[in-house]
């Protein structure tokens, strides 16, 4: 693939870029089975994780990925930084760039922040989730997980269920899956699913329509209460109306469908307890593949930081 500095959205990638990163994800995953789970690809490079929003899974996944590529990882903890004292993102980045970081992995509650940072600095910037905009590394791990399960993403049908409006995962994952030839549909409570004329993605309103559509993968999203100030829908309805109940799990099992979820899971809300042990539940595969996909992304980006070797 052509050298590129940043990964902000899936849309910014060419088809070739997407296939290259996916192909290397497989190679990276092979490293996990070796006795030494580490390669020297990014030896001597500095990676900074800059998370303005709480995250355990994505952050540690990136950190493990960077360590396995032999990079030095620094964690910028926002709650103890001058950001809480009112410092702007630009000024924080100036400070961090003085520390000569090569890669910055950033998460922020505002859509568009990683792009602003990317324009402002020479380090390679990876968007680890910005507002409801994009989460490209999640998209890669999801596409890779489906490819691993079915051999190919093309021709698969994936229905994404839940809070689409606030979900960067829905946007990025639907984009990559459609670019790779899959069909995607959405379902969720009315106010949380944008209309088809805005998304270009068909919109179902109940499970019967989903089963009729014959999907391969049921992709569940978490109900993001932390992004909701005024209620969008009566939460007491959610499990019965939109969740994977015991009864729906039996039908999913009969039809041999897969279940995915970006985590963390709210048991009893979007998914019943037993679904976590379901034979085609790919949630743990997603976590493992997340590290490989992030290694591949780090490996393929080219910081513009200067070297005098």
């Amino acid at each position, binding site marked *: 693939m052509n050298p590129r500095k940043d990964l902000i959205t899936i849309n910014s990638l060419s088809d070739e870029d997407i296939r290259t990163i996916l192909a290397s994800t497989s190679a990276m995953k092979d490293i996990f089975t070796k006795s030494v789970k580490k390669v020297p690809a990014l030896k001597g490079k500095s990676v900074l994780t800059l998370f303005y929003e709480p995250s355990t899974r994505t952050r540690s996944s990136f950190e493990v990925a960077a360590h396995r590529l032999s990079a030095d990882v620094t964690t910028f903890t926002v709650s103890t930084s001058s950001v809480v004292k009112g410092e702007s993102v*630009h000024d924080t980045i100036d400070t961090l760039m003085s520390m000569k970081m090569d890669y910055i992995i950033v998460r922020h509650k*505002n*859509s*568009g922040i990683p792009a602003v940072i990317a324009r402002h600095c020479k380090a390679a910037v990876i968007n680890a989730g910005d507002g409801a905009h994009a989460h490209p590394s999640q998209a890669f791990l999801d596409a890779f997980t489906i490819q691993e399960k079915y051999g190919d993403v093309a021709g698969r049908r994936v229905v994404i269920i839940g809070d689409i409006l606030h979900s960067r995962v829905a946007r990025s994952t639907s984009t990559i899956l459609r670019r790779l030839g899959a069909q995607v549909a959405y379902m969720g409570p009315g106010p949380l699913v944008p209309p088809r004329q805005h998304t270009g993605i068909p919109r179902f309103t109940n499970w019967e329509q989903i089963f009729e559509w014959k999907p391969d993968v049921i992709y569940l999203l978490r109900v993001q209460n932390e992004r909701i100030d005024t209620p969008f829908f009566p939460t007491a309805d959610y499990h019965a109306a939109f969740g994977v109940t015991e009864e729906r799990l039996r039908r999913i099992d009969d039809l041999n469908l897969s279940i995915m979820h970006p985590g963390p899971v709210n048991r009893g809300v979007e998914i019943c307890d037993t679904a976590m042990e379901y034979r085609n539940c790919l949630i743990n595969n997603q976590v493992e593949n997340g590290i490989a996909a992030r290694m591949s992304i780090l490996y393929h980006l080219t910081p513009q930081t200067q070297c005098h070797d």
Partner: protein
Amino acid sequence: MTNTYITNATWALTGEKIDLRMGHGDEPITIHRDGIALPGISKVTPAGEMQVPAGARQINAEGKILLPALFDLHATINIDGHSKRESIYRAGQAANRGGVWGMLVMPSRGFVFDNAATLDSFDDAVSQRSLATMVPAGCITEGMKGEQQAPYNTLAARGVTILSDSGNMPASLLMLHRAMKYAAEMELTFAIRGDVPCLSHNTYMHPSSTSYLLGLHGTPACAEEIGIETIIRLAKDAGVRLHVQTVSTAEGVEIIRRAKAAGMKGLTAEVALHHLLYTHENVGDYDTTFKTVPPLRESSDCAALLAGVKDGTIDCIVTDHTPCLPFAKKQDFVSAPQGMVGLDTFLPAIYTHLVKPGKLSWAEVVRACCTAPVDIVNPYDREEDVPVAAPLLLFSPDEQQLITADSLSCGTTNNPMLGSTLSGTVTLPINR
């Protein structure tokens, strides 16, 4: 005193070519043509019929359009970090370049027009520093906080005719209703943008394919439309004049059209030029220049707004000039302030994008940008004790200008025309 002669000018309202004589002895003279005052003009003849004495100053206006200068009914001039005098000077300079002789200045952080002292010091600074007439709009509420009515009697005594909290809809309709009833007896006009704050809270652009792609919450059109319907009904009940600010949706135009058709008196409305020219698609990949309130909507809304201007439902086209510092606009879309500047480029942009492609006639431009706004504001010179009349300007449609950061006088660069070439330049005053 010598006269200046302007020959072969094309009169915007009719397209006739005319000659003009400026001044006559020492007497200031104003004559009228097609219902428009021509201040300082003592004689008008068809082109070629004016006797120009030998040695007199003559300006050949061949190929140039003569029209009254524009009045902008919606300008915010405060530039953060600049002094008030500097903000006033910059806005006046930009206005003149854009063909604007006067403007209604919205209250803002730097100019809180809710007391006599602020208005007096503003008037002083304007008379010393401004190239353009600046009429302050008084605050509806103290400090624009939406709680307690500002002292309208005091403001009116200082020449205030329009009240506005600059785009903020007071949260309490009861307070607003009482304010309108109180102000109605002082012949004041309320200038308010239709909005329901709880529906537009934490929203950043028009709900659309672009907002979905960018993950930004959309401002529903119904927030504006319910707001317009609400302020119209309040004003009607209170018997006060109402000017609806920056209408952006097709249905908003229709609500105003229905109210006017039903015979409501004292109802006027404006559209910002950018709502006629741009849509949500211009936001592209988080271009903060195109972050506005209300947001840029669909092309069908642009078309309905233009139709509203043409049939008189929308009385005025305004700039909604809002300077934002470059640093502020370089932030992410959510954090960046809303607003565009438009004074520098107002008439050239109107000509390039509306008149030249045949969407608006010069007569419609004169109505929407020159006469209607002046009728709404009634600018008055209290020292001379006379209404202030619009000066004339000459517009050279064939001259091209590339809009660059250096070519803007307004002090900031958040102009959507930046980098584009506009047709037409302005000569104001005409004997410059």
